[in-house]
């Protein structure tokens, strides 16, 4: 329990700093139109945490203690409160939470506490993520040496650093290395995902239906599993649902360009959380480009795409230059695996204990509401779920594992889970009357 309290306080500091940075970035982009209060705070947190993560990673390469970063954030906070006070106040004025959000927030807080207490670590959590956090924390160890050392291949050197940097901040603030204080990170992201789903569905349904959607999402066994075993898929799920739904909101109301910009900024984080996120990032950019038109031209989307892909390019150039190697996927295409992959996908959809029927239900709803696919926003979110779901199984045609079925068995259902939050909101949006929006 002590670890949870300490972890919550430390995470609170990290979140506050991230929100401050996110707000600062947002103001610098000269955007004043903010979405729903819940949407606003979560967006600022995600944007800010991405910025902090990148800065702290670069600082670590340069061997600068990350504690300086928090000092800088404090200065940024003072800057926010003094130099641009009026604008900040104007933004903060909109952040009055409603009664419903407070109720849902309290429910989710209980869930956060329970999940944090239940959280344990599997190999992915400890040997891939916490190991990198330990590496970042050991200031005397040169980071470049780790990436170029072949004896660390086992730790998946090419895995991105978003999740480890959050653990690294918590260790830094705590003053020593302690894994249990970071057990609340994934439950925290799940809580935010729940809040986001509720907030989004509430636009189109009443309070009760929105709660039903939230409960369905939280009850999915695989979601429960990945939330307590220290997998990073929950984080990808949150970034993806926020990026996709904010772009959806923009498509619904092209006058609100700020939604599209939020979406781009948050979408840029997808590849920085999980290696497979680069596929999701590419598909997200592709869809955003295809559906652009009103409000934002394709040229603008292309330009933003280039800008937000820059960190991605930097990361891969860095890995390339330093000689880090990826081990999970190769360049050899194994076409003979296709039938086995399809058979596995069929088994996965039919697998009741993991709620595989959820995807069947999703398919049925899509067929029944096929006529609505003519609506641009609806077509966009639907494709945002279907496209990655179709592409992910094909990844295993390139798997280096032997047998590759083991690779597929341990990761495909987790990869699909990244789409569950979006799928939940699509399900509830599909059966809503889009013309009746709740404020």
């Amino acid at each position, binding site marked *: *329990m002590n670890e949870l309290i300490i972890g919550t306080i430390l995470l609170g500091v990290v979140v506050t700093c991230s929100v401050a940075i996110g707000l600062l970035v947002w103001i610098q982009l000269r955007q004043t139109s903010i979405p729903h209060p819940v949407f606003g705070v979560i967006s600022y947190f995600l944007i800010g945490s991405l910025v902090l993560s990148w800065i702290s990673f670069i600082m670590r390469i340069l061997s600068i203690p990350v504690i300086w970063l928090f000092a800088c954030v404090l200065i940024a906070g003072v800057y926010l409160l003094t130099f641009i006070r009026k604008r900040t106040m104007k933004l903060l004025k909109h952040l009055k939470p409603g009664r419903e959000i407070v109720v849902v927030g309290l429910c989710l807080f209980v869930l956060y506490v329970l999940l944090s207490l239940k959280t344990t670590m*599997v190999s992915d959590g*400890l040997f891939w993520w916490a*190991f990198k956090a330990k590496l970042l924390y050991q200031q005397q160890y040169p980071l470049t040496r780790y990436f170029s050392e072949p*004896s660390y291949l086992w730790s998946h050197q090419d895995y991105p650093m978003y999740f480890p940097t959050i653990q690294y901040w918590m260790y830094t603030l705590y003053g020593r290395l302690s894994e249990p204080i970071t057990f609340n990170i994934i439950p925290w992201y799940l809580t935010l995902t729940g809040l986001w789903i509720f907030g989004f569905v509430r636009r189109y349904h009443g309070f009760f239906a929105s709660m039903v959607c939230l409960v369905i999402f939280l009850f999915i066994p695989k979601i429960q599993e990945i939330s307590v075993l220290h997998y990073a898929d929950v984080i990808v799920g949150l970034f993806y649902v926020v990026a996709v739904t904010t772009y959806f909101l923009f498509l619904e109301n092209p006058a609100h360009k700020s939604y599209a910009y939020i979406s781009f900024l948050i979408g840029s984080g997808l590849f920085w959380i999980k290696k497979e996120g680069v596929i999701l990032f590419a598909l997200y950019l592709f869809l955003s480009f295809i559906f652009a038109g009103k409000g934002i031209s394709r040229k603008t989307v292309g330009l933003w795409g280039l800008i937000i892909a820059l960190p991605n390019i930097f990361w891969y150039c860095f890995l390339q230059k330093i000689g880090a190697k990826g081990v999970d996927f190769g360049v050899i295409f194994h076409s003979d695996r296709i039938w086995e992959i399809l058979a596995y996908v069929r088994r996965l959809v039919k697998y*009741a204990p993991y709620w595989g029927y959820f995807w069947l*239900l999703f398919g049925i709803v899509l067929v029944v509401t096929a006529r609505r696919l003519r609506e641009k926003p609806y077509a966009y979110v639907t494709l945002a779920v279907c496209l990655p779901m179709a592409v992910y199984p094909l990844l295993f045609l390139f798997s280096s*594992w032997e047998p590759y079925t083991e690779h597929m068995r341990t990761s495909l259902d987790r990869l699909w889970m990244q789409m569950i939050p979006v799928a939940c909101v699509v399900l509830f949006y599909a059966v809503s009357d889009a013309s009746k929006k709740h404020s």
Partner: protein
Amino acid sequence: MRLLVFTIGLCIVIVSFLPYSISDISGYTSSLFLQNEETMGLRRKIISQDVIDFSATIEKNQTGETPILFITGEGNNGKTFFELSYLLFPRTIYWISPSPKGPISWWNEVPLRNHDIDQFVRRYSIQTIVTEGAMDETLKPIATFSFQRGNLYQYSTL
């Protein structure tokens, strides 16, 4: 019509999931209320206390951050290697095994002959060797640990 289909689908999903969910939730609540904080803390650790103690002994017996050699026979699963690598970081651990190496095998394929091991030890200036089984009857380990997955022995090359 749309709402009806949706409701039926939802019922199917919920019914298919109920047995799993109830067993999980009951396990969940019992784990929360029936266990005290100490056992909870241990349960939340992926690394067994034995390996933590063993790595502490290695750290105590070893000077500086020189690399460590980890030797296993055939049919290994690597868990001990991951655990020791995590616990003993920033010391690099080199893993050798006579098993054939695959694309995602983390060991170096080396036949377990004295000459080959000796070469490896010299190349990386290794001071400590950890093995899953006893090495040679003439060599005496400086530490031995028995745990669920078997025995671990620590040897010094000095």
